């Protein structure tokens, strides 16, 4: 069972109703199979792009699926610089898949933004290109934790950046998220309604809406109720744009979600980490300094002789152990191979793929009738990524 309960909806703006264009906003909300991680992806298709609704739908579906992989990685590895590379490679794949879907090298017709987050038991990450907002907070007493990923507009309020543009990597913002109890993701249209200048929750809207919406126990009914608040003539006066709101709160706080909007808390203007991940490198350095100090303290405390003997013998012991283990592994691998020619077939392991995975692979493996040209910027990004990996490999050697 999921640890989170959510309410989400995308509502068509009146300018699009008038011009008979479809809703160009999309959203996808997922939880990891174990229910621990929440994944939200929201995308706002640009009004000028002819297939923006296809673009935003693709980006939210595809990227949400990719984020599930990040969850799996995060369970095995400690968070670090690799997350930036991982996210970049996932955005690259989303773009490649979109090109395959479009069967074209140019994806300008699919212009859309990317607002995504994944949150686990002790925090997570936000991934953001363009406008739209992510805000969140804690409901535990005295914690005062606040999170904000702001929209990035150009100088003017009616300009922004898209995942489909060549220079997306310059506008990609990956930020660590602290441990949160509630989170709201929205497109700029949703932000016009639910936030004050894209930075603070609009208490007058969120308090009554959250109170009413989260009275419902079924997701469907919550979504429906949220929709009625957005499909309001008054809301159409606030913004002519499509509106998307995703509200999420941890199970244990579902009755107290509205408390978050009872008092005017000031949301700090959280500085964003850019994709070079410099803040992470600093923290790693600090950690290293700390371990050095600890080691030094150990030497001082313990008996020196014993320590030196251990230090001399240690590598030898380790070498021996590695030898034994690798021998055993190699042996057992051969043994399995010899005895069970096809272990999967023999054990009848069901290697079933979910629909989303099948869709994803179809898009990525689709034999292309056209030669694939990455945009020059994408090529640079790819080269940089593989450089990063090379560097790590040489460093490991």
């Amino acid at each position, binding site marked *: 069972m999921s640890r989170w309960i959510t309410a989400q909806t995308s509502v068509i703006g009146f*300018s699009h109703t008038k011009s008979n264009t479809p809703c160009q906003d999309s959203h996808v909300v997922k939880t990891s199979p174990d229910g621990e991680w929440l994944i939200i992806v929201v995308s*706002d*298709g*640009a*009004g*000028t*792009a002819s297939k*923006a609704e296809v673009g935003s739908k693709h980006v939210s579906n595809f990227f949400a699926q990719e984020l599930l992989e990040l969850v799996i990685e995060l369970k095995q590895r400690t968070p670090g610089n690799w997350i930036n590379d991982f996210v970049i490679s996932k955005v690259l794949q989303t773009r490649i898949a979109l090109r395959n879907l479009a069967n074209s090298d140019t994806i300008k017709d699919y*212009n859309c933004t990317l607002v995504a987050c994944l949150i686990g038991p002790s925090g997570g990450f936000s991934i953001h290109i*363009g*406008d739209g907002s992510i805000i969140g907070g804690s409901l535990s007493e005295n914690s005062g934790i606040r999170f904000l990923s702001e929209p990035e*507009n150009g*100088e*003017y*309020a*009616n*300009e*922004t950046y*898209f995942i489909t543009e060549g220079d997306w990597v310059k506008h990609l913002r990956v930020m660590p998220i602290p441990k949160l109890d509630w989170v709201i993701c929205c497109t*700029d*249209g949703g*932000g*016009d*309604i639910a*936030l*004050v*200048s*894209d930075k603070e929750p*609009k*208490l*007058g*809207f969120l*308090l*009554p*809406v959250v*109170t*009413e919406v989260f009275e419902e126990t079924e997701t469907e009914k919550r979504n429906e109720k949220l929709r009625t*608040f957005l499909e*309001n003539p*008054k*809301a159409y*006066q*606030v*913004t*002519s*744009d499509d509106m998307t709101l995703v509200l999420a709160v941890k199970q244990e706080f579902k009755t107290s979600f509205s408390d978050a909007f009872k008092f005017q808390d000031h949301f700090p203007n959280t500085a964003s980490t850019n994709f070079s991940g410099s803040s992470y490198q600093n923290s790693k350095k600090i950690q290293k300094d700390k371990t050095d100090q600890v080691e030094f303290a150990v030497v001082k405390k313990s008996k020196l002789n014993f320590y030196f003997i251990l230090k001399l013998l240690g590598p030898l012991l380790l070498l021996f152990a590695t030898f034994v283990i690798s021998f055993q592994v190699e042996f057992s691998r051969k043994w399995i191979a010899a005895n069970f020619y096809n272990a999967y077939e023999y054990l009848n392991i069901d290697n079933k793929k979910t629909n989303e995975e099948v869709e994803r692979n179809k898009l990525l493996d689709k034999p292309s009738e056209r030669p694939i040209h990455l945009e020059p910027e994408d090529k640079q990004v790819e080269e940089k990524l593989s450089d990063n990996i090379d560097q790590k490999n040489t460093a490991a050697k």
Partner: protein
Amino acid sequence: MSTVDYSSPNQRTPCVLILDASGSMESIGSSGKSRIQALNEGIKTLEKSLREDDTALTRVQLAIVSVGGPANDADIMMDWTDAINFKAFPLSTGGVTPLGRGLQLGLDLIEQGKQNLRNAGISYTRPWMMVITDGDPTDERSDWLNAARECKTAENTKKVEIFCIGVEGANLNTLSELSSKPPLMLDGVKFKELFVWLSSSLSAASRSRPGDTMQLPSTDVWRNVGM
């Protein structure tokens, strides 16, 4: 159901009007009205139609620079004023047309206005500058060229959106130097139609969303199509 707060986000669309109030604006057209009379009525129409549009009323911001007039100089007649506080006032004519100087004042106003909005934490769309004149700029040729070049650069670097309207007698060749968009010729003294168009265009601009193309109303109602 408790009351839900549906209030609009704070945003502005600034527009500076550079209006010719030189002596030549006194001349009387076929309708029996002088150009300046028609222009002043146009400004009143602007106030009226802004008041009829809720979004425009809360978002549009105006400033007015007069060129010529009794002081025979370019002058800031009205500093940045929110549409909701905007009261139309008549301009009086006189003197020559130091349009280049007027343009420079306009550009300065725009930079100042942006700075003020940034300081107040209010977002804004690209400012507009509408130039209306019936004559030839009387600045020194080099001053005019400087001002026109600055305008063009500001336009190309997306600092401002320039609309240039010529009234009968205007030198369109000279006017075409200050914007990459060709100047448009006003049909007679259809200032009223022009300002209704300006109001609804500003409204469209103030409503525009990222990634949208702005749909401006047709200029045919006031434009001299023959030109």
